[in-house]
């Protein structure tokens, strides 16, 4: 995206985002393809968060078909989504804490740890990032042998390594000075602008679809929603950091409690007549897919709305009146993924 900035000396007077550089027309193409063939395409807008987009696309179809996914399938989807959330948060923290702060240390930390999670993804689904794992009725594969041990090993390693991020960055006065009290979004403004995800929770609003409207196995798992009330860039970074820890707790419970049984139900490849909207909490916020079916195997209309597009309105609001040197930190703290916003 391009940000057009008008400045008065060093202070930004007005900032206008110009987006659409990656607009590929996913919604239009989805109308002319079979619902199964749409899955890889609909997941591409956020390649680092594939499992959430996948689930969000499949959920309205399952609702219209009236099919109930077996418990084991829901648990496997939850496990994949939480692993994906940790990987995506490490990516977001690496970009803001690293590249946009002017160094590459956090970038290397974040991406280095993320590689372990991508190995787990590959073991479960066959691909590092583009899983296309959920289908209407369940998931495509069961947990392979040795997956549980490898997952627990990776979680143990992350628990050992995450305090290093705490020591190196959060007690580092340079990083804290750059992010503390920069880009403050108050609670009333956050609600008014309709932001979602870590941006919302960093401003003191305790809302998360996993708790408010539980789906999958989330109503059976015990976890917290980290919220910080300061509303500055550091709070948004900290929300992601704490969410990684919560995701690790969810993964430990899910892999321990996963029931035996089938992983999918066979369903016909048709969308019955009707409309349905899904709500899934991805790493960057709530995503929705609104699907209208007309009885054929192609959707009549697919409307996608993603966390980054909802958070876009915060950018011109936050950039008013700040120093131009604060722009990268504020932009990084929103964890804006341009491809997801443009679809």
């Amino acid at each position: 995206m391009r940000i057009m900035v008008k400045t008065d000396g060093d202070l930004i007077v007005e900032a206008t985002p110009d987006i659409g550089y990656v607009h590929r027309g996913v919604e239009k193409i989805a109308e002319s393809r079979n619902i199964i063939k749409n899955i890889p395409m609909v997941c591409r807008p956020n390649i680092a968060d594939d499992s959430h987009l996948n689930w969000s696309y499949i959920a309205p179809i399952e609702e219209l078909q009236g099919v109930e996914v077996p418990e084991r399938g829901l648990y496997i989807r939850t496990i994949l989504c939480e692993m994906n959330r940790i990987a995506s948060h490490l990516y977001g923290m690496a970009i803001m804490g690293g590249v946009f702060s002017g160094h590459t240390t956090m970038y290397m930390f974040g991406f280095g740890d993320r590689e372990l999670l991508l190995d787990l993804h590959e073991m479960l689904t066959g691909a590092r990032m583009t899983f296309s794992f959920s289908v209407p009725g369940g998931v495509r594969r069961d947990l392979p042998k040795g997956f549980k041990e490898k997952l627990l090993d990776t979680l143990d390693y992350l628990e050992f390594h995450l305090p290093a991020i705490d020591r190196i960055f959060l007690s580092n006065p340079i990083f804290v000075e750059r992010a503390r009290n920069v880009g403050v979004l108050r609670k009333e403004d956050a609600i008014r602008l309709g932001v979602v995800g870590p941006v919302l929770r960093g401003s003191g609003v305790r809302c998360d679809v996993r708790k408010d409207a539980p789906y999958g196995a989330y109503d059976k798992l015990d976890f917290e929603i980290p919220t910080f009330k300061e509303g500055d860039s550091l709070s948004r970074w900290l929300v992601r950091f704490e969410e990684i820890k919560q995701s690790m707790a969810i993964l430990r419970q899910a892999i321990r409690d996963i029931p035996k049984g089938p992983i999918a139900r066979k369903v016909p490849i048709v969308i019955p007549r009707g409309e349905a909207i899904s709500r899934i909490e991805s790493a960057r916020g709530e995503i929705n897919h609104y699907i209208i079916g007309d009885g054929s195997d192609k959707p009549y209309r697919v409307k996608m709305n993603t966390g980054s597009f909802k958070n876009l309105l915060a950018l011109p609001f936050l950039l008013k009146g700040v120093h131009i040197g604060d722009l990268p930190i504020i932009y990084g703290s929103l964890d804006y993924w341009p491809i997801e916003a443009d679809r």
Partner: protein
Amino acid sequence: MSPAPGVWVGSLRHLVETVVGLPPFKHLVNWSRIYSLWPVHLTTACCSAEFGALMCPRYDPERFGMQAAAGSMRQSDLLIIEGTITKKMLKRVKVIWEQMPNPKYAIAMGDCACSGGLFHDSYSIINEVQKAIPIDIYVPGCPPRPEALLNAIIKLREKIRREEVYPK
């Protein structure tokens, strides 16, 4: 003759270009070029996530001299076109390509950059980037694994090693 730095004048320039094009100097110049390929990380679409993963400690392209370098196009040699190029983006890609000084190389990464890929029937993308920018290496995949991209960079290095210093 490719554009040369402004210092050379007339036949002195021609003399230097001939000498540098001869084997011992040519190998030295090409060797230095391949060990300092600085990429412009043109994050257009999804493949940029795999390019970002390439720059991380596991794959370590810095041993090849590829640094996730400074922001300026004027200091980069390698344009990696990652993912789909939309019609809106094409103008900016051309501007970036023109800003890069010679010698410069381009890699088309991902199915979308090679031929349109998953979105080939979209109303807003360019299917054939090679008509706008001369591509040296095509890397298929959706997205290509970092190892595939590293393989492409190694092939590009072999291509540069065989090249003339001042191509006609």
